[in-house]
């Protein structure tokens, strides 16, 4: 049985909430310092470097990264609860986003958004109960194929029900820009970041402060122990998949305004999100978020400032960076080392 080892950070002698706050702030300051450092390096190496251009790349990278982070969070949630990597997460999100689009043809944005989230929850839970449940305890490879089958089926289903013509998806944020300290920032980007932040906070609060959240954490920790304590493990797993589907739906609906609705829109985002989740540590929600943001910014900076890479090799280059990080730290930035005992 795999037992996660103690986290690597030393125990600070303060309350957990305060510790989280300190670490969070530290991380934020550290990131800004790192970005400044990179910018300084680039002023020397790049002729056409401008600070406003640089920050613009960073901000749009963060917005992109927020979408990766949301989907990555969904992947992590499912992995922690059921030890399964859900390859169909992106297509589930696509399906829900199309449902939202259909709803938005009949009602205004936010009610449709909320209804879509409800649909996503039920959809995710239903998939877990009907399709995943029978294969949960089978070898890993079998489950992988099942989720791949789900991916292919949903992809075809979306194109079948709502034909593949490109469609516009409304955004609740105006398609304008604003200037912050000389940097032109898209309001859409700020909106996406805000929504992601709210989502993460709500999720955190749910897990931290509600009984249901506590029970789900227990199930993620050990299904057998929870069962012994009288928890209906099956329903908790379905709940986990439902929540993950909601996260995916948010990612999809945040991405759709700029990416446009297309049956394959989440396929490439899934790859990025997968990479972000593994980079951050497949069992760490914080890692998923950090991984997503880092990946988003990395891709933009690599593509813009490294000529050899240019636009073409952005994705492979980012993946190479990722793999190097994983080789140094196989459990990901925030993941836990898995100690296997026989």
């Amino acid at each position: 049985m795999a037992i996660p080892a103690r986290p690597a950070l030393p125990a600070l002698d303060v309350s957990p909430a305060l510790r989280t706050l300190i670490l969070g702030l530290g991380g934020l300051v550290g990131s800004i310092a790192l970005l400044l450092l990179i910018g300084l390096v680039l002023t020397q190496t790049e002729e056409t470097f401008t600070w406003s251009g640089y920050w613009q790349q960073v901000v749009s990278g963060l917005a992109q990264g927020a979408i990766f982070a949301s989907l990555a969070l969904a992947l992590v949630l499912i992995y922690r609860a059921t030890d399964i990597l859900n390859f169909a997460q992106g297509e589930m999100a696509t399906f829900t986003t199309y449902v939202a689009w259909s709803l938005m043809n009949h009602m205004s944005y936010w009610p449709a958004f909320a209804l879509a989230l409800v649909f996503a929850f039920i959809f995710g839970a239903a998939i877990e109960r009907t399709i995943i449940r029978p294969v949960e305890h089978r070898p890993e490879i079998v489950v992988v194929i099942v989720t791949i089958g789900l991916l292919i089926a949903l992809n075809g289903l979306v194109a079948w029900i709502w034909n593949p013509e490109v469609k516009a998806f409304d955004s609740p944020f105006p398609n304008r820009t604003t200037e912050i300290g000389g940097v032109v920032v898209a309001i859409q980007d700020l909106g996406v970041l805000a929504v992601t932040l709210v989502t993460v906070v709500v999720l955190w609060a749910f897990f931290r402060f509600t009984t249901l959240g506590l029970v789900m954490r227990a199930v993620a920790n050990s299904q057998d122990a929870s069962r012994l304590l009288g928890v209906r493990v099956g329903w908790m797993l379905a709940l986990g998949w439902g929540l993950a589907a909601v996260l995916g739906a948010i990612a999809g609906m945040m991405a759709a305004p700029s990416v446009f609705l297309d049956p394959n829109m989440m396929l490439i985002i899934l790859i990025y999100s997968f990479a972000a989740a593994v980079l951050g540590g497949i069992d760490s929600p914080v890692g998923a978020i950090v991984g997503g943001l880092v990946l988003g910014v990395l891709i933009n900076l690599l593509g813009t400032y490294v000529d050899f890479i240019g636009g073409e090799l952005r994705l492979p280059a980012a993946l190479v960076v990722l793999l190097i990080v994983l080789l140094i730290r196989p459990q990901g930035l925030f993941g836990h080392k898995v100690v296997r005992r026989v």
Partner: protein
Amino acid sequence: MKKLLLALLGVGAALTVSLPGAFARTEATQAPDAVPGITRNSIVIGGTFPLSGIASLYAPIPRGMEAYFNYINARRDKKTGQRGIYGRKIVWKFYDDGYNPGQTVQLTNKLILDDKVFATVGALGTEPVLAVRPLHQRAKVPQVLVSTGASYWGLEYKKYPWTSGWQTDYVAEGRVYARWILQNAPTSKIGVFYQNDDYGKDYLRGLEQGLGARKSLIVLKLSYELSDSSYASQLSRLRQSGADTLVLFTTPTPTARAIGTAKAVGWNPKQIVINSVSATDQVMAGAARAAGQDYVNGAVSTGYLKNNTNPKYRNDGAIKAYRRIMANYGPDGININNTFYYYGVAKAYDFVKLMYLAGRNPTRASLMAATAKMNWVNPYALKGVRIKTSRTDRFPIDQGKVIRYNNGSWNEISALYKGR
């Protein structure tokens, strides 16, 4: 045991789907001097198209062609009184290659060896067509009216005599944009956003060729990959370069994205130029919804077919015929405003004319000979455009007009130009 039986059923089903024809006997061979695909009352033709996957938005094309062929099979020719072409019904077989050239090879082999088609018509995609071009030469099977604007088909006819193209080619189109800019906005600062493959690069080459000495009007050109999830990075750099003209050499979905993203990064170019393949109503409607109608109004492109949704053409004979054909002979429940159905019908019209030109007893050789003798008016094309080829000119369509978008329609704003 029950599980075993269920599994047996499942496996049986799978094998039934997988191997239905695996051990089928070969079909009865025709008389030795018969032309493959031609019988007394049928012509069998085929094509490969991306019906699923990333390029599935082009799927309406073979359906449009199918509708037109159904119409030809049902109507009586005014001169001969026969249905079909000289009494032969067209049998149209098309398969989904998912835009994977490896699949195109297998499916084209199926068409030629198994379905024994007379010719392949309108196959879509530069890479898929390139993949099977040598195959067609080896098998001496015509590969006609392919659905791609690469210049290979019009230029390399000596080396590949069994292949011919149809639509205006991208390089020539790029030159038209250059000419238009030089004539109407010679002080423009051009920013080019192009797809990083032969499609985008052909357009770019045409633009640069057309600008000639004034190539420096292009202040920045940036590319994107189909695997990019966001163009914000490139478009904000284009904005910063000071460009005031955005030229988009992008396929349809990326075009809508690019316009939406350009607005999102705060750029308001004076002029937007969109390549003809992406100048469809779907794309413009999507872009308008994301960036606002004012943002997209005034965009310029080129076209050689009538804009089938323009109210100006509501009572045009060809548009009315198109609507009738799609309603009576096309699939149910589709959106006939989709330009790709119209494209398919226009192409099918030219194929039928080509078959007539190949003679009462067509052979593969006579069909290819006909591709060098095309000379007629296609009613679905813009007025004045002539479908014309000769021994030395193998671009059937090389004329068009510059068009401008306004509130849902593309309107012609120039005289007829000749691209080649």
